[in-house]
Every structure is written in structure tokens, then in C-alpha cells.
């Protein structure tokens, strides 16, 4: 399996605080990579670096490389909007736009120039089917998305991200605001999606990481302590700190 994204010596500062310390990692294509670690360990920061959402925070300084399909994403010639189109994102709190379900999904494709109604209809249906929410919303596509339940909203947000046909899907604790049933639906969905997409998911829940991920990366205080095959990492961690964390001695 080839690597779709890699980070080399990635360091990141918020002002004078260093949030990432020389992170090196490879993300294999069409797999699920879980990022775990205690709060404030840098896992979300790392995730947001991959589609350059950190650019929006004033005072951020980044050194090192992140490459996507062999191109350094910090290169001045890279169009950040193109990058974000390829590397989509699902946020911690479901954040549908205050518009209809249909318009939420069509927003991305429309922004990228698709005007044809029939084509948009197809994209919307496919995205909603892929996100396993089509059957629940097909009769109320014109209704406001804010009327959906939290779990439905999150699947809608996944559908919205899929509608622009990304290659990589970043998920920032996508189930932390959801109930157990909605959570397991999202997990099932992630497992289905990895046939077509590369998924990188931040989770505070180690069981979730075990359940769905192929690889796991453990972050602590801005450092990537270790990463590798999920089963191996949880059964035979190389680093003492990883062992302490996964056995619940801190965090």
C-alpha cells in the first residue's frame, strides 16, 4: 500500500508555545489511521495541519514538511483551496450550515462550479447514500438541516465532505458529541468508507481506535511517541509512555 500523506520533521508553534515537536509519520492510502493521546497533546493540531486549517489561526509558525501525493502542501505554488477539496474535514461538533439538507450537500460542488441541476441531484444522492443517511432524509431534502438530530447532523456533515470527492477525510473527534448508537453508526460508516477514502481520525476513545483503525499514532505533549499497526501498538507498545497511557495509568 502506498502512502498518500507523510509528515517529516513537522514542528508547529502557536506564538511561543510549541504544539508539535518534529513529527514524522506516514499515512497509508485507503486505511484508517487513529490519532490518540490526552487532551492538549497536539493530535488535533496535527490533523488540522494536514489540510492547512491552522493557517486561519494568527501567530502560527510551521517548519518541516507535509506531503500529499508527493507534493509539499506548504509550497507556495499549492492552491490551499484545492488541497482542502482533496483533504476534507469533519469537525468535532456537527456544523451543518443553516440551510436545507440539499443545499448543505450541494454547497461544495456548487462552489466548485457545478450548476447543472440533474448533476447536482446525483451528487447529493450519492453523497447521502455514502454517508448512510439517504433513507432518513430523502423525503425532506428541502427542510432545514438544523432540524436533524446530532447524529444525523454529523452524518450529514460527512456527506457534505464526501460531495466534493475528497481523497482523504480528516475527522476531529467526530463522535465526542454523540450518543452511543450514533457513535457506532459513524464507526460503521468509517469502516465502509475506507474502501474508497483514506481516513485520519482523532479520538479520545482508545476503544474506538481499536475498533476501527488499521494504524494508530500516540501523541504526548506535542510529540509523536510512536505509531504503527493498531493491534501491535495496543498489545506490544514499544515505548513505556504508550504502555502507561493505553493501560490507563494517566490521561
Amino acid at each position, binding site marked *: 500500500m502506498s502512502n498518500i500523506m507523510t509528515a517529516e520533521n513537522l514542528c508547529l508553534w502557536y506564538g511561543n508555545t510549541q504544539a508539535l515537536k518534529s513529527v514524522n509519520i506516514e499515512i497509508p492510502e485507503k486505511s484508517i489511521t487513529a490519532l490518540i493521546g490526552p487532551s492538549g497533546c497536539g493530535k488535533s493540531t496535527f490533523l488540522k495541519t494536514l489540510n492547512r486549517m491552522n493557517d486561519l489561526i494568527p501567530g502560527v509558525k510551521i517548519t518541516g514538511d507535509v506531503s500529499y501525493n508527493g507534493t509539499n502542501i506548504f509550497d507556495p505554488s499549492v492552491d490551499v*483551496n484545492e488541497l*482542502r477539496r482533496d483533504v476534507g474535514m469533519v469537525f468535532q461538533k456537527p456544523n451543518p450550515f443553516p440551510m436545507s439538507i440539499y443545499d448543505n450537500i450541494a*454547497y461544495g460542488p456548487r*462552489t466548485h462550479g457545478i450548476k447543472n441541476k440533474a448533476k447536482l441531484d446525483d451528487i447529493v444522492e450519492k453523497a447521502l447514500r455514502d454517508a448512510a443517511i439517504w433513507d432518513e432524509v430523502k423525503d425532506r431534502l428541502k427542510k432545514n438541516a438544523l432540524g436533524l438530530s446530532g447524529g444525523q447532523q454529523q452524518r450529514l456533515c460527512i456527506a457534505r465532505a464526501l460531495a*466534493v470527492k475528497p481523497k482523504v477525510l480528516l475527522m476531529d473527534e467526530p463522535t465526542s458529541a454523540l450518543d452511543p448508537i450514533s457513535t457506532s453508526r459513524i464507526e460503521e460508516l468509517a469502516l465502509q468508507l475506507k474502501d474508497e477514502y483514506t481516513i485520519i481520525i482523532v479520538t479520545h476513545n482508545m476503544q474506538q481506535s481499536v475498533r476501527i483503525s488499521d494504524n494508530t499514532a500516540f501523541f504526548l505533549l506535542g510529540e509523536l511517541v510512536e505509531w504503527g499497526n493498531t493491534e501491535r501498538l495496543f498489545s506490544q507498545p514499544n515505548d513505556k509512555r504508550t504502555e502507561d497511557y493505553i493501560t490507563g495509568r494517566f490521561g
Partner: protein
Amino acid sequence: MNKKKLLENVIHGVFLILGLITVGCVLLITVYLVISGIPAIREIGLFKFLFGKKWESSAAEPSFGILPFILTSIYGTAGAIVIGVPIGFFTAVYLAKMAPKRIKAVMEAAVSLLAGIPSVVYGLVGMLILVPGIRKLFKIPDGASLLAAIIVLAIMILPSIIKVSITALEAVPKEYEEASLSLGATPVETYFKVSVPAAKSGIATAVVLGVGRAIGEAMAVMMVSGNVPNMPSLFGSVRFLTTAVAGEMSYSSGLQQQALFSIALVLFLFIMLINATLNFFLKRDKEK
């Protein structure tokens, strides 16, 4: 214990009375306007009063038609909105979303200052610069015109439009904008396709406030509009509802004075209508 309770009750009572002062004033003004505005309308006839095209209050055979004033006020306000809203709206988007911190601080201070300038100063500057400018530019005998009033009003409503729109735009949850950016939309696409639609009630409120300010303004428009009761035309001298009352009140008597009260009543109804619209938008905002 009882003493404390008594004190509580007294304080409650005092505050209630203070609050009632405002309500009392509104009631007093409303009742007074209705009572003193109706007799003239009765005598002249509602239709003749509202739709009469001639206002000759001090002629031997006076005629009291206020259609010129009504139309002037509507046209003047509409013109100010047409010019002021785009400028104010885009300024607000720029300041709320795009401007670097320093530029934002300076420009917001300027907007606040603009809001604080007394209307007589607007009138004065308009009289000395705008009116002669229009006269020369369009080669008309007198620059005091509806156009001059529209321009002055457009500038006067800018602060309320800008400030209220900025507040609305800044209240848009960051999550919406992040979602849009993460889909590959550019910042400008995000502001106009996500932030502005999400803030539309607030922006509508800003526009309604601007309408209220424009239609109620008297001093500045009196100084630049020529103050002649013509049917409105862009380059002609005109008289507004507000200035019609203010201009003649000092020397009027009898039916003429009563008619001025009737004009005030009409203006008051316009303002009520605007307030109702404003409440509609504010309520809709709350329900969301």
C-alpha cells in the same frame, strides 16, 4: 426582617415608576398626536389631505395637500437606502471579516465618530459644499435639491447600517465558516455564501434602522433640500414631512397649525410601521 421586605417593595415601586415614565411619554405623545392631528384631516378630508398635490397653507384660499411631502420623504429615504446600503454593507463585511486589526480599529472609530456628528453639522457641510457642487456639476440654478438631501441622508445612515451589520456578521458561528473553508471554498466565497446568509436577519435590521433614521431626519435635510413644497424631482427643491412641520410651526395658527399636527401624525404612523418591521426581524432572529 419586615423592614427589609418593606424596603424591597419600596425599591420595586420606585423602579416601576421610573420605568413608567418612558411608557407614559410614548402614550402621551401618541394620544396628543391623534387628538390634535385628526380635526384638520376631518375638515380637509382624508383623501384630499393625503393625495392633494398642492400645499398653499398661507394663501387666501389655502390648500392642504401633503402628497408632495409624503413622496419626497419616501423618495428621499429610498434614495438614501439605495446609496447607503451597498456602501454600508460592504464596509461591514470588510470590517467584520477581512480587515487587518489596525485598519479595523481606525475605521470603526471613524464610523463611531460619524454617528456622533450632530445633524446640523451634516446640514451645514452639505449647504456649503454639496449644494454648490451640485449646482455647478449639473448646471442648475439652485443646488438645494432632493439629490443633495439623498446624499446627506445616505451618509447619515451609514453608521447604523455598518455597526448593526458588523454585530450580526461577527455573531455568525465560526464553525460555519470553517466548514465552508474545509470544503475548498475561498474566504470571500465563504463570507458571501455562508456568513452573510447566516446574518441576514441582522443585516435586514440594520437596513430598517437606516430607514428609520432617514425618514425621521429634519434638520440636515431642511438645510440642503431647498424647502419648497414641490412634487419631488431629483434636481428640484423639495420639502419633507419632517421639514414641513418644523418650517411652518413657528408662525402658523388655526387650520394651518392643525394641519401641521396632521402631518406629524402621518410621519408618526410611518415610524410605527418601521418599528413594527424592525420588531418582526428581531423576533424572527430570536426564534431561530
